[in-house]
């Protein structure tokens, strides 16, 4: 196919930087946290006071990459992607069931990725809040301190599961994983895995508004054809129009 070698940018430099800063900080926090929490590990690592100090400083640093990304002008795409985590469509609902998943026309993120992002975002806030109560406990009643420890412990265990799942799924979808490293996905991946997002990108390239019309076309095509390519007739025409004239490369000039 003509578009086989084409690339679509998925994560800009700022998003990738924020992601990998978060990943590094989470790794340090989970490692130091686990060795404070599990007796089997605290035996190997020990030096409780040092480990605790590292854990507290890494914890205080945790929200900084994300906050900078949210506040800096360069974080436009990051803010837009966070907006995408918020919005859940009928296709997102179809994705959850194995039976209806083949008919789900996804946007830039699949619902699992959305849940992961939302949970990790909430976890940052909760861990910062409960960790601060545990560290600077003087002004709080004892029951809050116990409650904060309780929440901190459970969020930690859930985070271990969620992050392990995140890494597993990322390793299973190399194109998606690579886009967090080099920034782009093959256009063929976007067309098959994220058709609604692909339409958006293609429309933007062509200078058309990424409107509900394009989305409507996806639905129309889906209803008519249920095709194995999972792409409706409507946007194929749109796509062809773009590919006719545009470079197959990065297409940055249009963006």
């Amino acid at each position, binding site marked *: 196919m003509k578009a086989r070698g084409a690339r679509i940018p998925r994560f800009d430099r700022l998003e990738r930087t924020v992601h990998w800063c978060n990943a590094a900080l989470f790794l340090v926090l989970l490692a130091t946290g686990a060795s404070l929490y599990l007796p089997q590990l605290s*035996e190997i690592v020990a030096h409780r006071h040092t480990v605790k100090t590292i854990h507290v400083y890494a914890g205080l640093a945790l929200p900084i990459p994300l906050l900078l990304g949210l506040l800096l002008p360069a974080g436009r795409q990051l803010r837009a992607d966070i907006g995408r985590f918020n919005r859940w469509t009928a296709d997102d609902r179809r994705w959850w069931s194995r039976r209806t998943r083949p008919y789900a026309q996804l946007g830039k993120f699949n619902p699992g990725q959305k849940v992961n992002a939302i949970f990790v975002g909430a976890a940052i806030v909760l861990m910062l809040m409960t960790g601060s109560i545990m560290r600077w406990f003087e002004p709080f*009643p004892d029951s809050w301190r116990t*409650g904060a420890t309780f929440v901190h412990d*459970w969020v930690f265990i859930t985070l271990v599961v969620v992050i392990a799942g995140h890494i597993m799924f990322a390793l299973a979808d190399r194109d998606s994983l690579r886009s967090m490293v080099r920034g782009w996905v093959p256009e063929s991946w976007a067309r098959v895995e994220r058709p609604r997002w692909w339409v958006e990108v293609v429309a933007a390239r062509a200078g058309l508004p990424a409107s509900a019309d394009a989305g409507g076309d996806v639905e129309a095509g889906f209803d008519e054809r249920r095709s194995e390519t999972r792409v409706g007739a409507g946007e194929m025409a749109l796509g062809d129009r773009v590919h006719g004239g545009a470079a197959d490369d990065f297409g940055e000039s249009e963006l």
Partner: protein
Amino acid sequence: MSDAGSPIGRRVFLGLIGAGVAGVLFGAKVQDFLASIVPKNDPTGLTTLLPIGPHFRFYTVTSGFPKRAPQDYRLAVSGLVEHPFTLDYSELRALPPTMLTRDFQCVTGWRVPKVHWTGVQLSVLLDRARVKPGAKALRFTSFDGTYTESLTLDQARRSDVIVAYDLDGKPLSSHHGGPARLYVAPMYGYKSCKWLSSIEVVDDVIPGYWENLGYDVDAWVGHSNGRDDAPTS
């Protein structure tokens, strides 16, 4: 269904934050409830990995949990005494035992209910060494090489202050401070010096490891460190 979708992500996010805040406010009660339905001595040890029941969290301030075989264990009593002496493990166990069943309360908030301790009252050791007049306090040293603790003589002579060697009917493990540790029932856990190797009688209280880092020297459960826990003894 509109193409924009519903703002479910925000609701999930705020819901999680709300659940977390509720957990801080009411988690202590939830934990008590979970504790009541989880068996205390789970043979698999799995429940101790989950934050559900009351269980000991094992702290060490050095590079590991020091291990010493019972046959290598020694406890020295020295300082302002007429008869300084050193006991080995079997000599310690041969002294008249005292059994205590008390809640164990940590200053960081966790509490293990109804722990059974067996050991020798500290006053028995002090009587045997015969404390000289002018002595005011005790200084405890751990064979971890770093940890120290203190008690006044009056505190040390209470009947619920022991050198413990059994916990729940079994010899103290290294994690719990074995072969023998101090157990000060009415005070927060940090007073109960683990891996006890020496007791020195001195003329004034010398603050211990955590006391130098800000904890109260007189660590009565419920009346120190700004806490209001139910007393343990």
